[in-house]
């Protein structure tokens, strides 16, 4: 069991990019240029860490491996779309990560006691909803890319192309508000700022358009879901059940 516990702890620690970014931002006083206080920036990156912990998705890698090894075949002839299995796996792992994420937050507050705050219940609930919607968007995007396995066999390479915009435009490295105005207007038309930036701003108490953000998240889910269904339907026609 020890190895499992260590693995879970490593998962949680592997998501600490936001803390590195916080360090870079505060040491260089970059927050002054965007009129965000040190405290609010700390809270933003802590929330970005939390949102990331509960919205990170790796379905493309799991599906690609299972597809190439023939493990998808038994699931395909069950009356349940195999992606539900991956979905359930992700949810289970998120629950497992929760205590570890709390421990990391505890240490964060020890070193940054001025950042301690208690969000009101309404905001907390909306943040949980928003984080879950962020997870759904990422899950759908990766599932669509994963379905490309039926054509390319190496869908993870395509996913890596998406990794760069996700890293820069989602708010993981910098709040989207720090981008120039004309770039921001374009970024907000993509799904990326609704993955980390919007839920993190919401939870940390930064000024944000709550109804607009939630609507955009729902809109992206409504756009991506039929696309996923279509590509899944066409892809399974191409399935050759290799490796089995």
């Amino acid at each position, binding site marked *: 069991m020890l190895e499992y516990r260590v693995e879970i702890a490593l998962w949680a620690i592997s998501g600490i990019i936001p803390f590195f970014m916080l360090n870079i931002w505060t040491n260089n006083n970059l927050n002054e240029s965007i009129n965000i206080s040190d405290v609010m920036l700390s809270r933003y990156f802590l929330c970005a860490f939390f949102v990331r912990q509960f919205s990170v998705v790796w379905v493309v890698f799991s599906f690609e491996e299972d597809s190439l090894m023939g493990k998808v*075949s038994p699931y*395909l002839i*069950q009356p349940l779309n195999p992606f539900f299995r991956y979905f359930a796996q992700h949810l289970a792992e998120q629950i497992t990560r929760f205590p570890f994420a709390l421990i990391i937050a505890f240490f964060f507050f020890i070193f940054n006691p001025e950042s301690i705050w208690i969000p009101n219940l309404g905001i907390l609930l909306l943040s949980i909803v928003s984080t879950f919607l962020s997870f759904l968007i990422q899950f759908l995007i990766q599932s669509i890319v994963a379905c490309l396995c039926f054509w390319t066999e190496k869908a993870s390479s395509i996913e890596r192309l998406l990794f760069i915009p996700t890293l820069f435009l989602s708010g993981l490295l910098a709040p989207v508000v720090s981008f120039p105005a004309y770039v921001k207007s374009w970024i907000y038309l993509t799904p990326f700022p609704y993955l980390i930036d919007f839920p993190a701003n919401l939870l940390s108490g930064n000024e944000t358009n709550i109804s607009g953000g939630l609507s955009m998240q729902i809109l992206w889910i409504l756009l991506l879901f039929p696309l996923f269904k279509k590509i899944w339907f066409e892809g399974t026609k*191409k399935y*050759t*059940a290799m490796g089995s």
Partner: protein
Amino acid sequence: MVQNIIDVRNLSKSFDISSKEPGLKGTIKHFFKRQTKSLKVIKDINFEIKEGEIVGFLGANGAGKTTILKMLCGLIYPSEGSILVSGYLPFRRKENFLKNITLIMGQKQQLIWDLPPIESFYLNASIYDLDKFEAKKRIKKLSEMLEIDEELFIPVRKLSLGQRMKSELLAALIHEPNILFLDEPTLGLDINAQRNLRKFLQKYNRETNATICLTSHYMKDITSLCKRVICVHEGEISYDGKLDLLLKKLSPVKEILIVCRSEEDAIKLENSGFTVKNKMKNEITIKIENNSITSSLKTILNNFDIEDLFINEPPIDEVIGKVLIKKDYDF
């Protein structure tokens, strides 16, 4: 009258295969200009299978038997022709169709590796909409039939191959399907585990009247389970009929080793008109056609002083092997 549960008409399947020349030059060429060709692996085949039948699909590696099974269970899409299984088009994978079938592939597992099999059984039970009480009942029944008990609570990764295969079977049968597609189910199992698995399949077929389509390279699986075989050669059906008829046709003679009381008797027998394969002192091996075996043995026993005799069936693998490597076998 027993109904057809599987009906296959003019079924064909083609795959696009890309080929690459060896070396760096070949790799660069392959990167910029990939050469693909369409390979027809199943060619215009027709057959029906009746409810409750156990049918063995025989063929050399790459003959197309697994591809046929995959199309029958809806895993892959046919290029041409039609398939009806239990009244459904398999590829549409309708819920009621999927609840009626199962596919078991030797060495391929659906059990969750790090958890005990019982967890996978309950997961499958939920997928097939079984309530907990019903699931428990079926797990108990199947585990008794398969003779597994403590193994249900041990992580899958710690089970032996035989125990794992039994657990795989239980997982695949928990929804009590009435059509079983089995692709090399005994692959890698030891002789006892193979025998137990065959006994279980016979019992399952007897008790539920399930239809079983089976591929196996172990002839014992075929001979003990299947009355009917479909031989596939290079994507075409070269034989579809009763197994014993096939064996009779492929092997019309039997070899009989006769031990005479004296060498003189052996010499007399050698010159009596039978086809002699070989002779050593008082032992002589003759070949007799299947249809005259009783009368020939009567003649031998009446006219010669015989100490012992042995009727040798030709090895079934050898006999079936003939039909698997030749396309236009003369039946």
